[in-house]
């Protein structure tokens, strides 16, 4: 096994730089090649030919946030599960598979509890979430 070196991280940086350079290059090319005839009407935001009214930066529904919320919790839980998952086979070979399984399953069970809660409370319903929570409050 060849130990990893920091040079192994080089491709990531190189590729990112290539992406940036490519972007700049393309941009530069378009600056050179593309015609430039700006007009006010041309640079209004597209709204099916109508004059846009107001800014698009308005308030959005909370359900977007709730989805993001569930996502971030799951994201973090999966982050914590990754190291455990990658030593799972090793522990199993060492004869500690049962222990690892219990640890792992109890972790996952709490995860499942979270999704079950959100499911029950209607946070996973895109349309109904508002009505469901209205009913909840009436109880």
């Amino acid at each position, binding site marked *: 096994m060849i130990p990893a070196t920091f040079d192994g991280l080089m491709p990531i940086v190189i590729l990112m730089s290539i992406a940036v350079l490519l972007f700049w290059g393309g941009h530069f090319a378009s600056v050179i090649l593309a015609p430039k005839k700006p007009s006010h009407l041309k640079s209004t935001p597209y709204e099916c030919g109508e004059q846009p009214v107001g800014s698009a930066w308005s308030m959005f529904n*909370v359900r977007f*946030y709730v989805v993001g*919320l569930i996502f*971030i*919790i799951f*994201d*973090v839980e999966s*982050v*914590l599960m990754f190291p455990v998952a990658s030593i799972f086979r090793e522990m199993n070979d060492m004869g500690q598979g049962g222990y690892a399984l219990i640890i792992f399953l109890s972790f996952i069970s709490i995860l499942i509890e979270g999704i079950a809660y959100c499911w029950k409370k209607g946070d996973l319903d895109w349309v109904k979430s508002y009505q469901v929570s209205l009913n909840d409050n009436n109880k």
Partner: protein
Amino acid sequence: MISLASYLVISLILFAAGLTVMIARKNLVAILLGIELILNAAALNFVAYSRYVTNNLDGHIFSLFIIVIAAAEAAVGLAIVIRFFQIKETVHVDEATQLRN
């Protein structure tokens, strides 16, 4: 070679930036941004010490959990901000005066 001091200085600057954000900004979301910066400064210190001082991975574990807690804190904090906005129609921190008096 990179020394421990450089990491500490970076972390210090991060912390100071976060501190400035937290004090100077009046937007609750921006204050949360400052908190993230401060937490990251701390986590960076943990990892740096883990490599330069203790030579074990406990610092990594610490910063892992800092990240976890920061995520949880951001989730709950932003939820509170959103709720606050729904009630008060503003995210200005000095308007959060319900508990006054």
